[in-house]
């Protein structure tokens, strides 16, 4: 006999976790759309955001309303710095170069975090309500629920901003045709910087949420692997794909962990990934490249 209540609970938790994936995946897709750089350091950017928040909130004891924006802004600066120093010189190089450079970047970030904050796991100060959340009969861990809510709010905000704000329009223009964007007077290099800054800020937000759920450590970058699966499943350059695939991967991970065991979590997502890629090589919603000779 199947326990429907339990299944419902597992699904809800999975979907809520998927919301976090969706937010981080959005950060990834922004960079990819604008600059065609596959940012493998997304997990490490998350980690950096989490640690910056830790510094401001726990070490400097700033109030939360100040610490969170400060961490997000500092992460944004880090993103801009990375773009300017490392990504910009590689414009026009083959995609594998940019991809590997982010791998190197991830390694550097992990090393820096271990030097500055040590390798031990830390707890972030609690800032989310601790009252259990009940959806119908299903129980949902409060942090997971509120984390998903915050993620959803940010996703909505980003979507609106990039729909109506001039900078957002410029970014979408650059994504669809770089040369044409130049022609109409868009400062394309600035768009590149902008995309990295915004992406790092979004990563910081999800880093803060993920960190406050499970604590922060220098191995937090593993979260980035799941994010990578999400964006590949959804299609690298699709915002809609990131959101849908985020929920799918969250769901699959939740179900696999609940019914098969924790060690099946990554396996299940990767099997889903390979399966989807075999059917749709550009992910669920990715643009199919038309190759010409």
């Amino acid at each position, binding site marked *: 006999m199947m326990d429907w209540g339990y299944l419902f609970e597992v699904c809800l938790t999975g979907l809520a976790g998927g919301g976090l994936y969706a937010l981080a995946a959005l950060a990834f897709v922004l960079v990819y759309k604008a600059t065609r750089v596959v940012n493998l350091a997304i997990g490490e950017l998350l980690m950096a955001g989490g640690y910056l928040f830790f510094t401001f909130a726990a070490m400097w004891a700033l109030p939360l309303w100040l610490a969170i924006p400060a961490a997000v802004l500092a992460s944004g600066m880090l993103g801009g710095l990375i773009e300017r120093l*490392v990504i910009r010189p590689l414009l026009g190089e083959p995609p594998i170069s940019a991809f590997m450079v982010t791998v190197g970047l991830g390694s550097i970030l992990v*090393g820096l975090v271990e030097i500055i904050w040590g390798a031990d796991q830390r707890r972030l100060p609690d800032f989310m309500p601790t009252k259990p959340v009940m959806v119908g009969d299903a129980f949902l861990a409060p942090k997971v629920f509120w984390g998903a809510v915050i993620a959803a709010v940010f996703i909505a905000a980003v979507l609106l901003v990039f729909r109506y704000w001039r900078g957002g329009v410029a970014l979408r223009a650059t994504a669809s045709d770089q040369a044409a964007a130049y022609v109409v007077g868009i400062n394309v290099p600035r768009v590149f910087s902008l995309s990295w800054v915004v992406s790092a800020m979004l990563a910081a937000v999800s880093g803060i949420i993920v960190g406050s759920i499970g604590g922060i450590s220098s191995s937090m970058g593993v979260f980035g692997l799941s994010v*990578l699966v999400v964006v590949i499943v959804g299609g690298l350059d699709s915002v809609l794909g990131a959101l849908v695939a985020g929920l799918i991967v969250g769901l699959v991970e939740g179900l696999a962990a609940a019914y098969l065991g924790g060690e099946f979590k990554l396996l299940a997502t990767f099997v889903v990934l390979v399966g989807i890629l075999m059917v749709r090589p550009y992910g669920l919603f990715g643009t199919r490249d038309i190759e010409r000779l």
Partner: protein
Amino acid sequence: MRIGTLKESYVADAALFDSRTQRAWLVVAAACLVLLPFVANDYWLYMACLVAINIASSAGLNILTGYTGLVSLGQAAFMGLGAYTVAILQIRWGTPLLLNLLAGGVVAMLGGVVVGVPSLRVKGLYLAIVTIAATFIAHFLFANLEFTGGTSGLSMSPGRLFGVELDTSFRLYWLIVPLTMLMLLGAANLFRTRIGRAFIAIRDRDISAEVLGIPLLRYKLLSFGLSSFYAGVAGGLWAYFFRVITPESFPLSMSIFFLAAIIVGGMGSTLGSILGAVFMTMVPEVLKLVFDLLPASTNLAVLLSPVRLIIFGALIVGFLIFEPLGLAEMWRRIRRFFHLWPFRN
């Protein structure tokens, strides 16, 4: 193209080693490799074996990524396949060493072909992620199958070759280094054949290659197979070298290490595989030596691993930005400088 090397026939043009100086240096290098075990201490022999194993694996990855242009982050998984095959054969049936290594290579090759199957439809970075998936699936299998010994892994007795127990670095050196040399020679020669040139054509533009009559799927799979065969043999050597194999022995970071090695060394160059693997294996060791020299009273030792990470990352970033063709290109520049030296430079 260097000056002063006039070639009169295609054979001369396609020769691996084209000048007398080069051949002379090669003899010197070979002599050094033969003499090394007699002068070096255990530590350096250990390092030499490790470097040779890494060279073999990097050479394999270079075939796939450097020459065929298919980015793979699964090299460690293929090494794992080879290592587990060798260990299981050795423990269960005690089959001869060279046969085990061959079997390890073949099993890894089959694994590589399976992973390569999506490569016709799935391209570029999507493919890289598929190989990451392969790494995790392999790790899961190693950790959960019955005959791989689960999470505690396998430990094996030293291998035997021609009645000699291969239990010291000194003895292993005579197995590992010649095999690596053989594999390097194979890799270098591969690119003088139709197959190797087809790989290069695929890298440069796969659709054009297909138009020119290169069956893409067959050659991409061949490239995956060859590359993982190298990884499998390297993994087998790794198994004989360390003799303890656990699922954690072949993490994703190891695949990244090999990719970094061929980037730092130079993609699409056999020399690059050698230089890159030597360099990337030695940097952490040199760093450790430097840290050992520092005063022991300070607690600097805890910084070693993060500093390694930072230097590892900085090397990748630095080489990609400042020397995208890697150490092999630096080497070529130095060689060109001394080519007609001291008369001209």
